[in-house]
C-alpha cells in the first residue's frame, strides 16, 4: 500500500489523462484539507479578524494568547489530561484482554469455544449508543459513574470484537513447532504466551493499540453522559461542546481549543500511518 512518490521519468512520459487525474485529486485534497487550514489560521487570529479578513488564511497579527486562554481559562489542559488518562487505560485493557482471548481462540479447542465465537459474531456490530442506558445504570450500581475508571471500563470492556479477530487471525498463522519446542524445554502455558507468542504478535498489538487509541480519543457519547455532573472529568471532545455553549462568541478561543485537541491524534497518524491504514484495510481483507 505504501507507494513511493513516483519520480518524474523521462522514459515513461505521463499521459494527459494521468495529469488530469493528478489535478482532480489535487483539487479534492485541497477541499479535504481546507477546514483544517482554516481552523489553524482562525486559532491565530483575534475574534474580530476572523470575520473581517474572511478567506485570508495568514493572520495579520499572530495571537498566540488564544492558546493560553483555551489551555488555562477554558480548562483544556485539564481535559487533555483526562483524555490521555482515559485513552491510555482503555488501550491497555483492550490490548491485554483481546490478546489473551484471541490467543486461546486461535490455538486451542475447549468446551464452550463455539458459544464464545457465536456470541462475538452475533454482537459485533452493536453500536455503543444503543446500550448506553444500561451501561450507565451498571456503572451507577458499581459506584463508577463519576470516575475515570468508569469511563475507561465503559469504553474498553464491551465491543472491540474486531481486535479479538485481528489477534485470532495472526496467532492462528504462527507455526506450531515454535511452541512445541518451548514446551519441551519446560515452558508453561503462560510462559509460551508471554515470551514467544505475544512478542511475535507485535505488529497486531501496534495495529490494535492505534485503532483503540483512535476510537477512545475520539469517543464522545460515553464521556458525555458520564460527565454530566462532573465537568472536571470531561475529555477534549466533550469539553469542546461545553466551550461552544459557554463562550459562543469566542471563535478564536474555540479554534485554538479544537487545534489543541486534534494535534495529538493527527501527529500520531502522521507517524504511524501504516498501522492505521493496515488496521482499517484488515476489515476488508479478512
Amino acid at each position: 500500500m505504501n507507494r513511493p512518490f513516483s519520480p518524474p521519468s523521462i522514459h515513461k512520459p505521463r499521459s494527459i489523462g494521468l495529469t488530469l487525474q493528478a489535478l482532480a485529486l489535487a483539487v479534492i485534497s485541497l477541499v479535504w484539507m481546507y477546514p483544517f487550514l482554516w481552523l489553524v489560521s482562525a486559532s491565530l487570529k483575534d475574534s474580530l479578524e476572523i470575520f473581517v479578513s474572511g478567506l485570508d488564511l495568514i493572520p495579520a497579527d499572530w495571537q498566540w494568547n488564544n492558546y493560553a486562554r483555551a489551555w488555562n481559562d477554558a480548562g483544556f489542559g485539564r481535559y487533555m489530561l483526562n483524555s490521555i488518562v482515559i485513552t491510555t487505560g482503555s488501550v491497555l485493557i483492550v490490548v491485554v484482554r483481546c490478546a489473551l482471548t484471541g490467543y486461546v481462540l486461535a490455538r486451542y479447542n475447549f468446551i464452550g469455544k463455539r458459544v464464545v465465537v457465536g456470541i462475538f459474531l452475533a454482537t459485533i456490530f452493536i453500536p455503543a449508543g444503543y446500550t448506553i442506558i444500561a451501561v450507565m445504570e451498571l456503572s451507577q450500581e458499581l459506584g463508577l459513574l463519576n470516575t475515570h475508571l468508569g469511563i475507561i471500563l465503559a469504553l474498553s470492556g464491551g465491543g472491540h470484537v474486531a481486535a479479538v479477530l485481528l489477534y485470532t487471525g495472526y496467532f492462528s498463522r504462527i507455526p506450531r513447532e515454535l511452541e512445541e519446542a518451548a514446551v519441551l524445554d519446560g515452558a508453561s502455558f503462560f510462559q509460551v504466551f508471554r515470551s514467544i507468542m505475544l512478542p511475535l504478535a507485535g505488529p497486531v498489538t501496534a495495529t490494535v493499540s492505534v485503532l483503540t487509541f483512535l476510537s477512545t480519543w475520539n469517543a464522545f457519547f460515553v464521556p458525555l453522559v458520564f460527565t454530566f455532573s462532573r465537568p472536571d472529568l470531561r475529555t477534549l471532545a466533550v469539553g469542546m461542546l461545553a466551550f461552544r455553549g459557554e463562550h459562543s462568541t469566542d471563535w478564536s478561543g474555540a479554534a485554538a481549543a479544537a487545534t489543541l485537541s486534534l494535534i495529538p491524534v493527527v501527529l500520531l497518524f502522521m507517524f504511524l500511518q501504516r498501522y492505521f491504514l493496515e488496521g482499517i484495510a484488515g476489515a476488508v481483507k479478512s
Partner: protein
Amino acid sequence: MAMSELDTGRQSIPTRRASAPSGVLARLWSDRWIYLFLLPTAVLYSMYSLWPIGVSWWYSLLDWNGFEENGAYIGLANYREVFQDGFFWRAVGRTALFAVITVPIRLVLALMVAVMLNNPRLPFARLFRTAIFLPVVTTTAIIGVIMQFIFDPAGGPINIMLLETGLVDRPVNFLGDSSTALYTVMGVHIWKWLGVTMIYWLAALQTINEELYEAARVDGANAWNVFRHITVPLLKPFALIIGVLTFLDTINVFDMILTMTRGGPFFSTEVIDVFIYRQAFAATIPRLGYASAAAVAFGLLTIVLAVIQILTFRNAREARRSM
C-alpha cells in the same frame, strides 16, 4: 469473517481427546489456563456488552424516568407508543435517507479516488491519500463544532466564498435552515468518512495482480475498458462487505449531529440516535423505558433490513450464476 481461522485450533484435538470419556471435568481442569485467559474478556464483555443488550429489552417494558430507583412494568405500552410516534418514524426516515444518499456517494467517489491512487505512475499518490484520509482520524465531536464556524452565515468561509464569487446574493444559513441542515450534515459526513471507504477499496484493489493491467494495456485496452472488464469484476466479491461497513457508519452519526445541530432546527436533523438521546437524556423528564423501546425497535428494523439485503444479494448472485 475469520471463521476458518478460528477452526484451525482443531488440529490440537487428538492429543487432548485422549483423556478418559468420563473426563469432562478433567478436561475442563486440564484446560484451566485457557479459561483463565478468557476470564477478563468474559467478565468485561458480559458486563458492558451482553448485559446491556439483554437488559435493554427489560427496560423497554418499563415506565421509568431514571430518578426513581426502579421503573413500573407497563408491558408493551412503550412499543405501541413508539410505533405510533411520528417523531420516531420521521427519525427512522431521516436515518434511512441519510444512508440512501451518503452510502452510494461514498462508495462511488471513494472507488474513483482509489482507482486513480492505485496507479503506480500517479505522482503524489501518498500525499493525496493522506489528505483525504486525515478527516477520518479526527474527533467527530470537534469536527462538528468546527463545522458550525465553517458554515456560519455571518462570517464562515463557505458563505464568504459564495458571496464573493456571486453564487448567492444572501448568506445561506446552512445549519440553521431546516431545509438545508440535514443535507449539510450529510455533506460533512461524506467529507469526514470518505477516506475509510477509499482505504477499503484500495485494500481490495491491491488483491488484483498488476500484470493483469499490463497485459490488458499491451493488448490495447483503454483505461475505461480495463476498469470495466478487469477492475469491476474482480472487485465484486469485496463490494458487499465494503457496502455494509460503509452503511454501518450511517447508523452512528450521533457525535456529528449533536455537535453540529443538536437535532435541530425544528427536529430537521433528528436521526434515530439523536431521538433516543433526547428521550433518555435531554428531555425535562427522561423516559429511559421509552428510549430503550425505540432503540430495540430500531435494532430489530436494521436486523430485518440487513437480512433482506444479504438474501437479495445472495439470490441475485445465484440467479446470475445459474444463467
